[in-house]
């Protein structure tokens, strides 16, 4: 049976209650404008680091979304300038 949500967890900067690391990482990695394509840095050596950041930091959910699009190139999978 539904219960009054006394167990509701509130993580709000407005209440001086710190958000968890997971909350923060989830938002900075998964929310916001995405730029893909020729504008993204593609200098020798930097690509690897950028790829590393993507792989290390992406959430499971995002990774699974990408896994569902195995034949789609990055520029097709994420249109230039599209938000989350």
């Amino acid at each position, binding site marked *: 049976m539904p219960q009054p949500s006394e167990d509701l967890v509130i993580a709000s900067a407005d209440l001086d209650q710190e958000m968890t690391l997971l909350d923060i990482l989830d938002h900075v990695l998964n929310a916001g404008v995405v730029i893909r394509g020729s504008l993204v*840095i593609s200098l020798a050596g930097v690509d690897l680091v950028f790829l590393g950041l993507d792989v290390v930091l992406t959430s499971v959910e995002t990774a699974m979304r990408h896994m569902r699009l195995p034949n789609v190139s990055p520029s097709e999978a994420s249109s*230039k300038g599209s938000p989350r």
Partner: protein
Amino acid sequence: MAVLAYCITETQPEIAVPHAGVRGTTIETVRIDDLQCLTSQFDPQDVVGNASIQEAALDFNRVLQDLLRQTAIIPFRFPTILTDETALSQFLTEHQAEYREALLRLHNCVQMEIQLKMQTSTQPQATSPKSGAEYLRGRQAQHQYIESIVARFREAAQHLAKGWRHHETVAGIRCFALVDRSDVQAFLRQMKGVSVPTESEPRVTGPWPASEFLKEQ
């Protein structure tokens, strides 16, 4: 040198630019008419290894939260790295109309998020289905169950939320409410009063930049 893009804001009202960005770098602005993008120089070689990456992500969030407290922002996903400021100017010029519209629409608003976990034990018909039809009926019941919980939050938020979106994820469901800055405390109080199954581990976080509402539905 490469630049890391943080977010886009309007140039007016003037904002206090945070003193330091990721790894203590100086934050600069790239302006296109009445829009500006905050950036800092970025050397990817400085951010190698999980601890450094995590630290950089937290620095990035600190900058966004600092700016969000002052004005509406359109954040870039971390890490968005461009070859130089010229590339960023080109991007801003191409997309300025849509970002100007979004900032105008989202002016003075923030995004609050409600996460609900949907574990098997909380779902009706948790037993293994014996047929395809039974599986589909189970899925339908599960969907209705989730929707009924979401509806409780939505109803509680209806007088405060200027916008509402929700979608299912592998872990449960995520709801996003667009709330006026001045209504954040009232929104949190309203959410406290919602009755939900404790197993769903309801969690409210925010305020965040209104990323889910950048485009009108």
